[in-house]
């Protein structure tokens, strides 16, 4: 029992970080119908930025979030204005976003591989090996900080969407793009901002990835597979669903690792994806079938 609870604690901490990784992905789909296959490569790029800031300048990964978020926001808005504005009226739009982001992902992966080679990296802040003890249970410090900060960022996003003017615009666009446009929402501006927020969250996620999960350029494919599975489980475009999916799969994959073996953890994600497609294709919190 103790062991199961301990594994559940690990799983929830992981799930918190997964939720942050996936939030931007589901936001991009919810607002702009963009299936962003480049989302994970943004996270990996941010992890590289964090890594070198730490190695060269001694900046702590958690402090790096302060500059990563605005930097990746600007990058996201720039990418949106450069690429996605061009395909707005394209007939098979969702499919087009998949192919376009696929190309962008390959491009960034190639750039990262060319500049930084394919070797594994991991930032080594002092708290990486620290732990807190809560009764009989171990709570690794680095994971705890990551999960707490992820939670704070997600709450901030929720408050922003709920209580600001831009947030209203974003939610209106999520519900019905055409109607939002009709009632005076500047849909293009809202889309660019949303994509910026989406990549800004990838930027913040990179800070955590840099010390929690060893990375190299090609790694992002595995991450995007996991994150997409998680987002489909929760319901594409649903933030609530992404958080729920992340926590469920964080715990489930930790249990799989504990019970079956270290290599089998991601299987929980794929099993969940194919399982949910069989019984409820729209996902746990999805309102409509994924179309």
């Amino acid at each position, binding site marked *: 029992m103790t062991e199961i609870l301990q594994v559940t604690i690990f799983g929830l901490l992981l799930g918190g970080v997964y939720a942050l990784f996936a939030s931007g992905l589901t936001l991009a789909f919810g607002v702009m119908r963009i299936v962003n296959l480049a989302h994970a490569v943004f996270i990996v790029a941010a992890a590289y930025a964090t890594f070198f800031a730490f190695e060269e300048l001694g900046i702590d990964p958690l402090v790096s979030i302060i500059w990563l978020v605005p930097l990746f926001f600007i990058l996201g808005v720039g990418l949106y204005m450069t690429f996605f504005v061009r395909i707005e009226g394209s007939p098979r739009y969702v499919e087009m976003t998949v192919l376009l982001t696929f190309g962008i992902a390959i491009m960034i992966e190639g750039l990262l591989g060319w500049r930084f080679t394919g070797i594994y990296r991991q930032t080594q802040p002092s708290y990486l090996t620290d732990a807190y003890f809560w009764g009989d249970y171990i709570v690794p410090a680095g994971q705890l900080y990551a999960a707490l900060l992820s939670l704070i960022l997600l709450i901030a996003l929720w408050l922003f969407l709920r209580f600001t003017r831009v947030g209203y615009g974003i939610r209106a666009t999520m519900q019905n793009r055409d109607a939002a446009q009709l009632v005076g929402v500047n849909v293009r501006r809202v889309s660019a901002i949303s994509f910026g927020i989406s990549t800004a969250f990838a930027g913040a996620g990179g800070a955590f990835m840099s010390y929690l999960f060893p990375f190299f350029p090609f790694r992002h494919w595995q991450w995007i597979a996991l994150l997409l599975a998680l987002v489909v489980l929760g319901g594409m475009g649903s933030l609530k669903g992404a958080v729920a999916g992340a926590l469920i799969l964080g715990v489930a994959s930790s249990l799989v690792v504990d019970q079956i073996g270290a290599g089998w953890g991601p299987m929980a994600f794929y099993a969940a994806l194919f399982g949910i497609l069989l019984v409820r*294709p729209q996902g746990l919190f999805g309102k409509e079938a994924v179309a």
Partner: protein
Amino acid sequence: MIEDRADAGGLEPEVVEAVAAPKGPGRSRWGVVAVLLVGLLLLPLSRPFIDSYNYTVLLATNGLMWIALASSWNILGGYSGYISLGHAVFLGVGGYVAAVPLFYYGVSPFLTALAGGLAAVALGLVAGLITLRTRGPAFIISTIALLFMFLLIFENIDYLGGTAGLPLPVVPISRDWLKAPFFYAMLIAAVGSIVLSYQVAHSKFGLGLRAIAEDETKAEVAGVPTRFYKIIAFALSAFWVGVAGAMWGYSLAFVRPTLFFTVAISAQMVLMAIIGGRGTVAGPVIGAVLIVAVNEFSLTQFGSSEINILISGVLLVTVLLFFPLGIVGTLREKRLLPAFLDWD
């Protein structure tokens, strides 16, 4: 069922016209094909006449393999518009289905290659039954997940050699002619997949797939059994990829999960089909030849595969934004398409 072409569920006139195939004099293009085929058939016999024989045959074999892969991908991704980013999974399954009997029992992959293809078809059917229940992005996402799921499974099963894979014996023939059997095998796969692609393009089934690409709801209303068609297209597009996988592993003398079950291979198929012109018969062939040439050039020029990846990405984005119809599609639109490239 669609009987009357003009009534094909509100299809755009171009589509109906493009599919209402038999047109134009085919003689000159058959001439080109005959010359190409004879040239290819004779290539492995040219050992006494060219210096860089091994390199030439290897490059040609490689080109033929990619023609088979890109043409196969096009059957689903081109005609029906359902993008699969996990097609490398069929290459891996074919590779292992041939490698395991060879490694454990010494059965030649030249005998089991078809089984590799059929195993890929079976996987396509099962995966299609689950993932093609929905439309749009869920399918694409499941294809990536399928690929990584298989990578995970193959890396964790000891019988299959785990992450290290299985070493395979070399073909028991003279070193001088070692490359020839693989060349002919890949030639069969390439021709087979082009013929399959052509047959699909010119059948009622292919018409149904194009209708799905155009507007799935309309296609369904018009009586196209969309789900059934999509699953069949997915399975058909797996066959020659599986066969090619069986041959590829044998020619490399090993199979390894990270080499076969990788997004990089899927990405190349997508890139080739799109650059050449997806949804056309000749497009993926042109795309494959072009990309194999570009890769070869950049490898000898820059010597790193990272630059290769970067170039692939830049090419894909550029083509999507500026020539979404690809080479064949763009030429046809401008009425500049030479007859020997017009097979639609």
